[in-house]
């Protein structure tokens, strides 16, 4: 099971990032809470603790894969499947 964290205080970009990531996972045929879990990290100190300065950020299984922008579906799929 893949653990995905979306880092962001809650601005529109973070919401969009969460939607994009969920959509990409569902398009792969993954089921939430079975194949992947999606968590939102909204506390600034917890975002900083992951070494990220620019939100939105995406963390997969503890590894930061994207910061400061909304990712696109093809790249999300490579992160999910790698």
């Amino acid at each position, binding site marked *: 099971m893949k653990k995905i964290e979306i*880092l*962001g*205080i*809650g*601005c529109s*970009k*973070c919401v969009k990032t969460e939607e994009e990531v969920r959509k990409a996972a569902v398009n792969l045929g993954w089921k939430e809470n079975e194949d992947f879990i999606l968590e939102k990290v909204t506390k*600034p*100190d917890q*975002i*900083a*603790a*992951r*070494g*990220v*300065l*620019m*939100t939105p950020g995406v963390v997969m299984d*503890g590894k*930061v*894969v*994207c*910061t*400061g*922008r*909304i990712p*696109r579906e093809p*790249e999300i799929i490579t992160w999910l499947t790698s």
Partner: protein
Amino acid sequence: MNPFYPVKLFAEWVTYTLLGLQDGALLAVAVDFFVFDTIKILILLTVIIFTVSIIRSFLPAEKVRDILARHNRYFGFILAGLLGIVTPFCSCSAIPLFLGFIEAGIPLGVTFSFLVSSPMINEVALVLLLGLFGWKIALLYIGSGLVIAILSGIIIGAMRVENLVADFAFQTKAKVSFHGVEMQWKDRLEFARDYTQEILKKVWIYVIAGIGVGAWIHGYIPTDFLAQYAGADKWYGVLVATLIGIPLYSNAAGVIPLVSALTEKGVAMGTTLAFMMAVTGLSLPEFMILKNVMKTRLILIFAGVVGIGIIFTGYMFNLVLK
């Protein structure tokens, strides 16, 4: 040759041939001005923001942090000011950014230099200054913005205000060391394209509205009309301009075209520059967000130091630029 010559021809064609307006009529002048400036600014925005985004894809905030953490205090202020120019942050990133800088051991003063320069010298403001005022004023804006950022950082740093920062800021420890994601050229181009689109989508309406009102002022208000209210000899001009600028944050796109028209009608250049710096550099929403990590007193010191810097710059240019 002026690269915008074809745009000028197009604007004239729209005004005199397509709309059939009479040469020299006030309406014709306003329409010509509006069509020319709108197209020119939109082209400049696209080209410059795309270019800056490519540069930025090499300098994610995490890399900026690593660079600043490696350099000594004095060079750090200058570097923070310079890096702030190419690294904008949206106000929702202000806190993670602040915490991350402190956590990496970057001095508070250097962090503030970055927090001043990044929003004040932003690419949208620069494009508009370049397009509407020319490169001299654009350079003057960058130069004085940098000086204000560097000096504000040095002053705040010397004030030893660490006790006014929330305690948890110094306790945050990054569990993961992360130095930015390496991007491929394909990703950089996509990032630049997306970012340019995003900015254009956000500002085009303000740009058009600002230039529209500006065109009307250009055509209908007599030259020097405003000199009696906001000329260089009016001592309160810069002060009032700075105060008005504070709540106008994020509308630089609409404010600058308007201000360019006002300058033409007699508002002093220093007053104009102070106003634009206040619009971009003193942001209420950013202050509200930073309240989560620092005491109100520190925010007041921050705003005060930057505000005084802006006002001083305004008066100086009113004296120097005649």
